[in-house]
């Protein structure tokens, strides 16, 4: 296939196929698996796009890049990316990726999954992975509900929100994910929305360069599961809503950036960027002790 090369804003060459109708990310997506299963207006696609572009720009060869997902709408992401990709059990993407990373430290593993998968059934694994500072990048698509099963409430559903299992409004508080990740020990913590494509891509690129456990929350429209019931409209309306309510403040006090329905601002940014000995770094040190014995 004939190809032309185009340079995009000094970020390095990307190869554009000359075939009409081809897409620059065709080689990174499993084109034969398209169309995808996601609804019109879903925010998973743009977020996955940011990840795929970050892969393209990363210095780590694609051969070493791995995507691991759990179960749910976002859990299907792994199936569309043309690198080593694993679609595991519900909530277990992080421990699966943990074992893989320890077995082969050359791999650059991204866990790409949803809020229900990572913070309800998989919540225990998340806090322990952050605590042990295992070298993984976790990207959580937060759409405030269980989309795939029909819009039920989840650990990120804001108080009073309407879902298919909170018909009178949700009684509970929701997790403030960046605060949780920071408290548990993540070395890089960010929150963006699927509208903030460039910032999200930059955050993913940065996470890929960090040693240790990183976490990026991506707020994402889910028109049928959450937008509709809470009068936020279609995907585009929700994107507009993010645009109006978003405020970027990397210095924000994380304790105060929980999400609610209503007029409060949605605080975004790269909040935490610190160093802590990673699991693998510490393990290498201690392994010498074991072999000396």
């Amino acid at each position: 296939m004939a190809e032309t090369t185009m340079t995009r804003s000094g970020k390095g060459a990307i190869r554009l196929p000359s075939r009409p109708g081809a897409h620059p990310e065709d080689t990174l997506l499993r084109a034969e698996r398209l169309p995808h299963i996601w609804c019109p207006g879903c925010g998973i696609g743009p977020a996955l796009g940011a990840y795929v572009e970050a892969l393209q720009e990363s210095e780590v060869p694609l051969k070493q890049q791995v995507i691991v997902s759990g179960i749910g709408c976002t859990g299907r992401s792994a199936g569309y990316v043309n690198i080593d990709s694993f679609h595991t059990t519900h909530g277990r993407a992080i421990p699966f990726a943990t074992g893989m990373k320890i077995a082969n430290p050359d791999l650059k593993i991204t866990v790409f999954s949803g809020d229900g998968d990572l913070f309800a059934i998989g919540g225990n694994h998340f806090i322990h992975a952050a605590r042990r500072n295992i070298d993984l990048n976790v990207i959580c698509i937060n759409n405030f509900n269980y989309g795939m099963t029909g819009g039920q409430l989840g650990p990120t559903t804001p108080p009073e929100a309407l879902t298919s299992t909170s018909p009178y409004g949700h009684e509970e508080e929701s997790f403030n994910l960046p605060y949780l990740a920071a408290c548990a020990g993540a070395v890089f913590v960010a929150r963006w929305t699927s509208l903030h494509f460039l910032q999200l891509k930059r955050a993913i690129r940065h996470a890929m360069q960090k040693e240790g456990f990183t976490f990026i929350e991506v707020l994402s429209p889910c028109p049928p599961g959450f937008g509709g019931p809470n009068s936020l409209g279609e995907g585009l309306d929700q994107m507009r809503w993010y645009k109006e309510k978003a405020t970027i403040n990397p210095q924000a006090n994380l304790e105060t950036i929980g999400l609610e329905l209503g007029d409060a601002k949605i605080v975004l940014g790269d909040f935490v960027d610190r160093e802590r000995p990673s699991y693998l770094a510490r393990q290498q040190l201690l392994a010498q002790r074991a072999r000396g014995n």
Partner: protein
Amino acid sequence: MSKAVLTGEFFLSGGAACVEGAIAAGCRFYAGYPITPSSEIAERMSRRLPQVGGHYLQMEDEPGSLAAVLGASWGHCQVMTATSGPGFSLMQENLGLAVMTETPCVIVDVQRGGPSTGLPTLTSQADMMQAKWGSHGDYELIAYAPQSPQEMFDLTFKAFNMAEKFRTPVLVMSDKIVSQMVERVLIPAEKQIKRVERRRPDRAAQANGAEVLVPPMACAGEGFAIHVTGLTHDERGYPAINVETQQRLIGRLRGKILQNGAEIIEYEERDLEGARIVVVAYGSTARSALLACRLARQRGLEVGLLRLITVWPFPAERIKALRAEALIVPECNQGQMVREVERFATCPVRPVSQAGGELLAPESILKAIEEVAQIG
């Protein structure tokens, strides 16, 4: 660096022998969660694996332990975990993932009495059916029942080879007695050890399109852009949610175990020639059964012993071929494998059961033999 194969003659507990069998076979990754009476295995692993360049990882729970084990297997490591009943229950979810994604791994279940928290920590053999049916859906796997520390070494070693060869989870269904008793264990010389490794991808072989029961396994980081999913999937690994794919996949996954029964199934026969009564036993109970059979023969009764080494897949053909007048199946449970024996036996079958807690006494088995002999 310490040696992977500790060649020599030792007094070892079953748990310690299990660890040495695993490491000799090539195990370099263990993830687990402490639970009595399997914790000795975790403790020795945490000491031994780093000495041979391997990794011990203590996880936050059992679902996470088996998930990490499977991830490490796809990172091209030979992998294992060990647990006991309550933890084995929690692992059923990812046991299904291991079957569906054909991930080589070894799971050691040191059985204790249940249900629930049950009897910490007294023995039982009450997870034998869970081993076959615990995860949802139709599947086959391989399960061994060691009867001694020596077999904890031998069968754990073999479990790794079979896991690699057939790309399947392999279970070592131990129990508190076999795992904690200390006996003489012979560890062979390095050059006598035969390790089997998973078949590696070979594009030429794949291109000829021949149907294989056990496909080669490409791992992460090898440039194959593999896709691995617990969904029903086609030959490329892509989800395909339809009747034909399900039938083809499930047929092959079951077939690769069942059609290789001749290679997988092992048992030990004693005095079966002309035996009117055959005792069918496995694991620690087989030790009692052996003594009971000896005593019965001293009393002139024509009794033989069929000791199951592989319990799953079940040796149906061997049971069918038994020409006895009665079979006796002693178990440290309320009658689990006896159901399987009944399915294939051509003569009456009598269970000898107990609720767990202690080794089934040889006297109970001897009594059953004598009663059956009188009826006959």
